[in-house]
């Protein structure tokens, strides 16, 4: 990977360069209060783009996997039904995506494009996507109380899956190219070659950062083993399920959740659309079968589904990583405090007592 140095004052010129190349650039902004959000950059809001800010709750996942997406249109006329597929192929760049969300997009890539059947809708969103990652280096603004990417090995500085990575070194920024497209930007005169001192500084900042994470941790290893081996007591799942309000919030903010449902709805007198919509395993309709039987009727049976999918070895093998990227959003939104870190903790404590492996060694 090649790296270059640029002045702090020139960082947003990268946004300008991308816009000149015809990209729709989305970047993070402050709302009011704690609110932050990704929005399309225009001439008016360009100067308000934030480099350091709390990661928006609504993840940038929606730029490759929209919350609601039209798949096709049906029209009824002259006794016939005409079907017209709808493909959106934006040329888009996400500026300021955090390392956790980048890992989330890589997870979606593995899921939607990684095997025999490629998802054409996802692929259309993904193929012209340019990703500018910003390393979370501002302890106060970038790293929230719920962040635990050091536990999922996805941050604070991503190692790959970006086109360009920016890291704040103080008065200067380091830009690292992850793809030829990213490297092509280095032709612009805002970039200059770095020195060994820059790399040392990067390492020093990252070493310090890893110690500055706040209170949330998630000790996954044992829990992955318990989930995979089916060691977790029914009682523990019930305790977790009892705290679930079935709102689906954890799924809607998760950068790695992939599930959707498909629904047809009228859009005119003789016109219908087929849409796919984010779905959540917390909802009972998610597993209910057409005949009325629901194999996961009880709340805790649905709730454990989330953690099997995210932590069981079968899936880790397939996606090459856990389906948790350590962003902490589920911990922030859950009213019952059963976000990933709490659940890992509950399972670890409850199952440790009956751990077969542990017992065998005594």
């Amino acid at each position, binding site marked *: 990977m090649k790296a270059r140095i640029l002045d702090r004052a020139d960082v947003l010129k990268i946004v300008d360069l991308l816009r000149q190349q015809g990209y729709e650039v989305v970047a993070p902004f402050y709302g*009011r209060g704690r609110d932050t959000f990704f929005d399309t950059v225009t001439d008016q809001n360009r100067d308000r783009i934030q480099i350091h800010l709390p990661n928006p709750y609504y993840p940038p996942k929606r730029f490759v996997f929209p919350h609601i997406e039209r798949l096709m249109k049906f029209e009824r006329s002259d006794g016939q039904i005409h079907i017209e597929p709808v493909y959106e192929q934006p040329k888009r760049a996400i500026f300021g995506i955090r390392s956790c969300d980048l890992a989330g997009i890589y997870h979606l890539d593995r899921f939607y494009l990684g095997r025999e059947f490629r998802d054409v809708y996802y692929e259309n969103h993904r193929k012209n996507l340019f990703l500018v990652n910003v390393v979370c280096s501002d302890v106060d603004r970038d790293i929230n109380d719920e962040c635990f990417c050091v536990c999922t090995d996805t941050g604070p500085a991503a190692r790959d899956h970006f086109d360009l990575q920016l890291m704040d070194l103080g008065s200067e920024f380091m830009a690292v190219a992850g793809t030829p497209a990213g490297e092509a930007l280095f032709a612009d005169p805002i970039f200059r070659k770095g020195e060994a001192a820059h790399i040392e500084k990067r390492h020093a900042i990252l070493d310090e950062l890893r110690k500055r994470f706040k209170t949330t941790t998630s000790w996954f290893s044992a829990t992955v083993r318990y989930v995979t081996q089916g060691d977790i007591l029914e009682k523990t799942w019930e305790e977790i399920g009892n705290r679930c309000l079935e709102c689906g919030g954890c799924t809607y903010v998760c950068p790695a959740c992939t599930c959707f449902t498909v629904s047809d709805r009228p859009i005119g007198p003789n016109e219908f659309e087929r849409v796919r919509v984010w779905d959540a395993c917390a909802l*009972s309709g998610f597993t209910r079968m057409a005949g*009325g039987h629901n194999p996961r009727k009880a709340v805790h049976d649905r709730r454990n589904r989330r953690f099997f999918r995210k932590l069981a070895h079968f899936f880790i093998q397939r996606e090459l990583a856990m389906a948790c990227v350590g962003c902490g959003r589920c911990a922030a939104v859950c009213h019952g405090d059963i976000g990933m870190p709490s659940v890992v903790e509950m399972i670890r404590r409850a199952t440790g007592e009956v751990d077969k492996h542990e017992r065998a060694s005594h």
Partner: protein
Amino acid sequence: MKALWLCRYDPVSSSLFDLAGSLGQFELVVVQHLFMTDTAKYAHVILPTTAFGEERVSFTSTERRIQLAEQMVEPSPGLTPAWEQIVRVAGLMGADWDYPSAAAVMEEIGEVVPFYGGASYENLSREYGRQWPCTKDQPLGTRFLFSEDNGRKPFKFIPVPKPAPAPASSKDFPLTLVCGSSLYYWNQNVLIRHSEALRREYSILLIDYPEGFVELNPEDAKGLGVRDGHKVRIYAEAASAVSTARVTAEVRKGTVFVPYFEHDLERQILGERRDGSALVPVRVEREKA
């Protein structure tokens, strides 16, 4: 009363009473709403309005927080904000109402409602809402309505009598019938029908229990010989009604839960009282077909 003007209000779907009949007595019913609601079906005039995010408008929550919602998307062609429709109708009726924007309406509210005096759109746009009283002297709003430092008399806590206990369970009526709301049934289901995931949850219940349901605890159901999906008859002292049992541990033992969209059942059991908060002693028996 000859005419009724309902602004984003759908009493027909949310009320226990038979409002459809009452609406028929009016010479003119005007409904402003986002959707074709049950109430709108009885209207002589329907004015479709813009939705949240399609207009610049303020909301006040029960936390006293006055919030400004900015317009983020363009409304579908032909839709106008509710306030603008009122102004236009007023104009046609000869009134001289001159509001160029919702902000101007808010300015006037500030002039006549003292504790909204400082809640101009310009002020609201600077923060994540202001809590009233938000006056010219106190433009940042008031976080606590009653506190020692704002000169108002502090709250005094007064014990209230305990709520009436559930009617003593008798041999004849050992269960307590409770009416209430339930997940996926919001006050005005019309909104849920426009949210894909919620609509699915809502429709599934209707598919599983097409004639509605009452919820029974599994232990009670076992004792009664009732299984999920069985027809049951609920006997109260003066009346009885038939429904389908939904057996779920989500309700407590000793309780029969009636989701409040079960209007017919509520009417039959509660009769003229029609007080959804009442606890009614009942007996449940399996209804043989």
